[in-house]
């Protein structure tokens, strides 16, 4: 392993790495736009220049390999001047419309300018005008004027998504990034280009103008969109969750995540949630607190014999929750009839070769493990065939109902039973069809609880509580405990109720995008 000195600090790096990687390893600041650890090296922004002792000219750190005993710095006057002028060239045709730009606050160009710039531009010529608000399909909007031609997005479509839609057309100061004839950028990973765009050239249609980024906090979590279990950062504030971005994990998702996974926040927010617990008695739905419904459901269930009760589980809960539910079923209710509800049997095994899997549950492996542990488990078909045998059913329903296309059919077929206890995070109008003695208990979503998910490769990953959207919602462990007749320390009640997601009406008035 070669040793070198960076800014006066000695460091040992793996052979073959570049200077910029050494800077990253040392966590020293180094300016860069075009370099991205997940992409090939382009060397076009010329901002990561460093001074190497014994070398008369400055070199770019991203494309210079480390050699034994190198002495490198990026804090000399010479480097600072070079970075300043590099920045000045980037700003020649950049509109500097930060106040109305959605990237402001997380823009690398803006950060760079605040750190190294803060001077009046010395360019006397008028700026080149380019196309703005170009609609690039379902998820991405392009502003070619703000683009600094770092080519990250182009390399992403060439190397990662391998769809090759983007290119840099024209040349010189007329160069523009874009797709051929403005064809939509509808690949399944398109929003990653928005994430890696260092400026506001590519913005997400879903997120733009919804919230200023400095009003958002973020915490790591796990994507519940499929069994890959991508590591994500959840961006939220007191109004709810606004977006989900990938978080680096070499073993699971690298630097990327799919577009579908970015939509998971939609079923987490209040708008699609079941806000209060409900139960049906004498043909009337009564609304009350979740914990009251859980207690009532527990009492009702205890009036059945073990063999009269079936449990239907989805892989959308944490290992701890599933364990407590199956334990409750086997040891407390005395029912060994636990069935696994899969989102879609036909494409269950699908895999697109990169990240997206047909199994749309974050914890299928974990569920299988729990079922194995208690030596129970069966398929939905088995339950359907012997449905008349049962009088009551407990359903741990999906948190993400949008991937369970058969939820309506399931409700239809289960409503004939005497008693249905349904745990759900999301609201669904079909619940109204359930008959008497039905109990609906609002559950927490993945961002509101602590636990572990086991992904398709058997890797167990921790999820931590990010925020509280519904203080009233329970997790499965709490629900089971309440159903057993225990009382619960509900200190969560003290948590402040979330505000309702505000609509930014001005964003509607700006036009179609």
């Amino acid at each position: 392993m070669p040793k070198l000195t960076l800014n006066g600090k000695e460091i040992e790096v793996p052979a073959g790495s570049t200077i910029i990687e050494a800077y990253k390893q040392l966590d020293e600041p180094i300016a860069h736009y075009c370099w991205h650890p997940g992409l090939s090296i382009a060397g076009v922004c010329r901002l990561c220049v460093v001074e190497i002792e014994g070398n008369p000219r400055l070199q770019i750190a991203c494309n210079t390999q480390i050699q034994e005993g190198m002495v490198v710095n990026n804090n000399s006057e010479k480097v600072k001047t070079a970075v300043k002028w590099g920045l000045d060239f980037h700003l020649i045709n950049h509109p500097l419309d930060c106040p109305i730009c959605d990237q402001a606050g997380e823009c690398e160009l803006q950060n760079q300018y605040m750190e190294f710039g803060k001077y009046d531009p010395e360019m006397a010529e008028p700026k080149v005008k380019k196309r703005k608000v170009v609609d690039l399909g379902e998820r991405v909007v392009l502003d070619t004027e703000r683009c600094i031609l770092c080519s990250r997005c182009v390399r992403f479509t060439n190397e990662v998504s391998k769809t090759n839609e983007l290119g840099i057309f024209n040349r010189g100061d007329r160069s523009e990034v874009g797709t051929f004839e403005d064809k939509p950028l509808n690949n399944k990973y398109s929003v990653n280009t928005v994430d890696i765009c260092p400026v506001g050239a590519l913005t997400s249609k879903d997120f733009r103008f919804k919230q200023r980024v400095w009003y958002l906090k973020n915490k790591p979590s796990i994507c519940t969109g499929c069994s890959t279990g991508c590591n994500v950062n959840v961006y939220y504030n007191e109004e709810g969750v606004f977006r989900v971005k990938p978080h680096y994990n070499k073993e699971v998702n690298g630097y990327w995540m799919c577009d579908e996974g970015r939509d998971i926040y939609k079923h987490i927010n209040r708008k699609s949630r079941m806000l209060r617990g409900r139960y049906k008695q004498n043909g009337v739905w009564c609304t009350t607190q979740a914990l009251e419904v859980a207690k009532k459901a527990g009492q009702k269930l205890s009036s059945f014999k073990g063999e009269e009760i079936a449990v239907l589980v989805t892989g959308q809960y944490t290992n701890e929750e599933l364990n407590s539910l199956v334990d409750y079923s086997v040891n407390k209710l005395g029912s060994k009839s636990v069935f696994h509800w899969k989102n879609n049997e036909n494409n269950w095994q699908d895999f697109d070769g990169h990240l997206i899997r047909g199994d749309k549950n974050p914890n299928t492996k974990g569920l299988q493990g729990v079922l194995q542990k208690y030596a129970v488990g069966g398929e939905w078909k088995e339950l359907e065939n012997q449905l008349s045998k049962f009088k009551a059913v407990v359903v741990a329903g999906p948190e993400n109902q949008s991937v369970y296309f058969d939820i309506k059919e399931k409700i239809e077929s289960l409503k004939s039973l005497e008693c249905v206890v349904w745990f759900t995070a999301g609201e669904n109008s079909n619940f109204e069809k359930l008959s008497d003695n039905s109990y609906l208990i609002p559950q927490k979503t993945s961002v509101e609880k602590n636990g572990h998910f086991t992904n398709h490769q058997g890797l167990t990953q921790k999820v931590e509580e990010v925020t509280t959207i519904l203080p009233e919602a329970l997790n499965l462990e709490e629900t089971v405990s309440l159903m057993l007749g225990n009382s619960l320390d509900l200190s969560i009640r003290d948590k402040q109720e979330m505000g309702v997601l505000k609509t930014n009406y001005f964003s509607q008035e700006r036009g179609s995008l």
Partner: protein
Amino acid sequence: MFKLSDEGVAYVKKELERYETKRSAIIPCLYRVQSENGGWVSPESINYLSELMDLPVAWINEVFHFYTMFNKEPVGKLHVQVCNNITCCMLGARELTEHISKTFEMGIDELSKDGKITLSKVECLGSCDTAPMMQINDSYHENLTPESAVKIIKDMVHGN
């Protein structure tokens, strides 16, 4: 719908095997498309070429937009390209361009009224020793005066 002739397709196939990467063959193939498409490259023909070469359409479009030798709009039968680089300009290329534009009543990069001629200003064509000069389609015309240039164009329009 644009299609290359059989010889054109054979040419493209040959070029594709000539270089280490298929991408290198884009320029000669685009030239072929331009000459078979009446002097310009249309978006449909880029799509067609992308299918024929089995390359992403964006890659071909990048090359197409980078080089000015590929015409983005339809051009007349005569594409008059007057060199406007430093040597030619010192010897009157700007005045020459203006004279041609006035005589045939057409602007820069526009078709003449009869649709036969397109006039463009271009960068150095590497013929500084015989400045000012112009290129009409594939031939060079050198040591021009406004009068001789107009005469050459008129002769060519009338088919000489």
